[in-house]
């Protein structure tokens, strides 16, 4: 009868870039083990929102918590919070001067001071998990986009995060590589990882998402379970948008 734990809490988030209001009063929660998918037209603020969750961008006003730690408190230790929040980027952002293995072990070794003989086997295990056991010594430039993104996911997992953020993880990929990345994400979702995902992959949404949040012009227009939202959207704007991508 354990009550669901709130992992991510976003409350009245507002972000202004110069004269542009990227986020206007966004509030929602992500519970432990939930997969929340954020969709919306480009410029709707979804990526900005994600980047505020680990404070790569700072909110203009409003609050964000990871568990009981405030991300938005300027005196809080954001670095400590980031250890627990993995992030996967649209352009992978692998470190090009390091092998796949060293990409994965860098943070555990420098941040958590994990010795090499523990970090390396762990990296091997993670690479196996994302289906790249044979690519340990490969440099990013010798990997395909899909393979790079899977290494990036393994790299984020190496810090044992409580929450994973995905910022359009398949947008930079060729169509035939999208599936291999989504499969890894599906596995993660099945294992109970808490995930906040910005993506338009509707197949993934139906298969894994608990909630789909539709954003437009910096606002949450509506949020619902995927089947409900896709087949029975409450707002005209949502229906219009979905017509374009379904």
């Amino acid at each position, binding site marked *: 009868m354990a009550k669901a734990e709130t992992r991510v809490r976003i409350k009245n988030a507002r972000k202004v870039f110069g004269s542009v209001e990227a986020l206007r009063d966004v509030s929602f929660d992500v519970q432990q083990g939930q997969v929340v998918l954020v969709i919306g037209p480009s410029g709707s603020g979804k990526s900005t929102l994600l980047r505020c969750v*680990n404070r*790569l961008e700072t909110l203009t006003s409003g609050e964000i918590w990871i568990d009981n730690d405030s991300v938005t408190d300027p005196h809080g230790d954001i*670095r*400590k919070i*980031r*250890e627990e*929040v*993995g*992030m996967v*980027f649209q*352009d992978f*952002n*692998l*470190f*090009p*001067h390091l092998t796949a293995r060293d990409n994965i072990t*860098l*943070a555990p070794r*420098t*941040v958590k001071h994990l010795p090499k003989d523990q970090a390396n086997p762990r990296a091997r295990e993670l690479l196996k998990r994302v289906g790249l056991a044979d690519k340990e010594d490969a440099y*990013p*430039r010798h990997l395909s986009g899909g393979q790079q993104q899977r290494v*990036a996911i393994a*790299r*984020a997992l190496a*810090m044992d995060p409580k929450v994973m953020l995905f910022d359009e993880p398949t947008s930079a990929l060729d169509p035939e590589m999208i599936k291999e990345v989504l499969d890894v994400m599906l596995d993660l979702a099945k294992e109970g990882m808490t995930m906040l995902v910005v993506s338009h992959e509707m197949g993934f949404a139906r298969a894994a998402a608990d909630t789909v949040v539709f954003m437009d012009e910096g606002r949450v227009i509506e949020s619902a379970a995927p089947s409900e939202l896709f087949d029975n959207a409450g707002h005209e704007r949502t229906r219009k948008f979905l017509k374009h991508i379904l």
Partner: protein
Amino acid sequence: MAEIDSSNAKKQSITVSDGMLIPDRAEKNLFSAWRISFFGAIFLLILLPIISPSPYRDIMRFIPDGVLRTFQVTVISIVIALVIGLITGLGRISRNSVINRTATVYVEVIRGIPLLVQLFYIYYALGTLVQVPRVTAAIIAMSVCYGAYMGEIFRAGISSIPKGQMEAALALGMTRRQALGKVILPQTVRTILPPVGNEFIALLKDSSLVSILAVSDLLRRGREYASTSFEYFESYTVVALVYLVITLFFSKLVAIMEDRLGQSGN
């Protein structure tokens, strides 16, 4: 006319580096400018003492000390300049306004004063306060001057790394310092190696200025020989040829390095 000029000025920029004419890959034929200059200079340096042993053989015996001194000043200065440059480059991208301002002022001041004046200033002007040996003064002046230029190279190198690299490192829980040390700087090295090589060549040539402080470098040794033997033409011919051989040798090295980095880069 003025309108045409201003519109053209926006579109075009001409960069002339201080480095030597570096042979590009297209210039593979036997008679490239580099080959003609390099082997021509070596040929003359061998031929002249044979056809005219006096004074060329004597000059060739007199000069090697100066070559060593030139290398000593150049190598020590470039190493110190690299350290100063790294600190300055990091200062120039620092978000701390005091550090940032200090680094920027240093670069502006040093770049605005001719190296020869800096040499005089450190040896003679500051010499009234603290007396330092000539060679030390020369090395300090060269390092401080080239440190400013190196700072700009480091800054440009660090800025050329995509923003996502820093973000990825921070998102993993690394501090900015860890990210710089483990992610940004290792990638910077490969981009700044060629410009640093060019600075090395430029510094090697500029090191001839230290002869003005009576440091017995290559130029000074030639001058010493000339002033006792009155064989100015012959002495300075050898000095010029030796500089040319050294500079062309290193410019080739830099070009090869650039090529290799270009091939293995992503």
